[in-house]
């Protein structure tokens, strides 16, 4: 690793205290099917009037990072211009058989699996070029997964500001409290990106954290 990248990682947070950027580049991270693209679509729909990409129930629907520049959000008189990167879901394993359960042919499933492995690598590479992170977790699932722990560890190591988005609170078995108790040192905002529940609170947190 280059010495400049290493220094940026260790001391970037000090520089950020004194420098206000015109634009902030944030990455939307999380495991597959946590609702990353649904959240990106919600933000874009609310502030730019369009959407980022297709969200489906099949894991690894997003297999290339998608960058959308210049999304301006305004909260309580504060204005923030964001470049948003919707990243592919992070995973430690990718089995094409899992995609066949959703009706994909073996050929389609293998193609998707190959693209998904490339997407994971791309998502990790983007971590070095971001100013902040929205880490999306599915609040109906156990938050102590290795993917979540690894992402949080890497964001902390880079001293990037982060908001954990406890998504899917519209579902009956959701428990944002479980996420809060797993990562007590971080800001956790419960939302339903699909239904728009509590989304204003997320925008407020983004303005405070990334602005």
């Amino acid at each position: 690793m280059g010495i400049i990248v290493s220094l940026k990682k260790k001391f970037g947070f000090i520089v950020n205290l004194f420098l206000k950027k015109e634009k902030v580049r944030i990455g939307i991270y999380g495991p597959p099917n946590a609702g990353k693209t649904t959240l990106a679509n919600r933000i874009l729909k609310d502030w730019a009037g369009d959407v980022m990409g297709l969200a489906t129930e099949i894991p690894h629907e997003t297999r290339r990072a998608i960058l959308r520049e210049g999304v301006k959000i305004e909260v309580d008189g504060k204005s923030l211009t964001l470049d948003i990167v919707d990243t592919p879901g992070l995973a430690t394993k990718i089995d094409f058989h899992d995609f066949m359960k959703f009706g994909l042919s073996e050929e389609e499933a293998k193609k998707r699996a190959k693209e998904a492995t490339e997407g994971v690598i791309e998502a990790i590479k983007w971590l070095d070029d971001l100013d902040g992170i929205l880490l999306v977790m599915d609040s109906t699932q156990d938050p102590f997964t290795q993917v979540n722990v690894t992402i949080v560890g890497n964001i902390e190591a880079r001293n990037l500001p982060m908001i954990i988005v406890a998504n899917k609170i519209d579902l009956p078995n959701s428990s944002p409290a479980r996420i809060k108790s797993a990562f007590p040192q971080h800001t956790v905002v419960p939302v339903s990106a699909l239904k728009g529940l509590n989304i204003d609170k997320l925008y407020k947190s983004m303005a405070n954290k990334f602005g």
Partner: protein
Amino acid sequence: MEGVQLNLISKDKLDKMASMEKLRMILESVKDGKIVVLESGLTPEEEAKLIELTMLEIDHKNFIGIEIETYPQKEKSFFGRFKGKKGRLTVIGPANRLKTIQKKEDLITALVQLG
């Protein structure tokens, strides 16, 4: 005797190894069907690099990836920012053999499939 080979690697040995050397050793063992237990674990950056290397090695036939489990990091102190933080005890195995049943802050329960 039939079974799964466990490689328990001491902190002393890990401390003497360069990052890439460590990651290659882990990945080669896991691809060989072994379970690797690291006494002192990996840094978050090493974990991310291990995931990257794993993605490159997945062949969609014999190797579908890894299962990796470690305890969550304790809260980081101000001075902790300035030195790389090593993870705690870590278990890594092939995803088709090692399956995590439950993971809590202080307890990991996993199942190892034989053969």
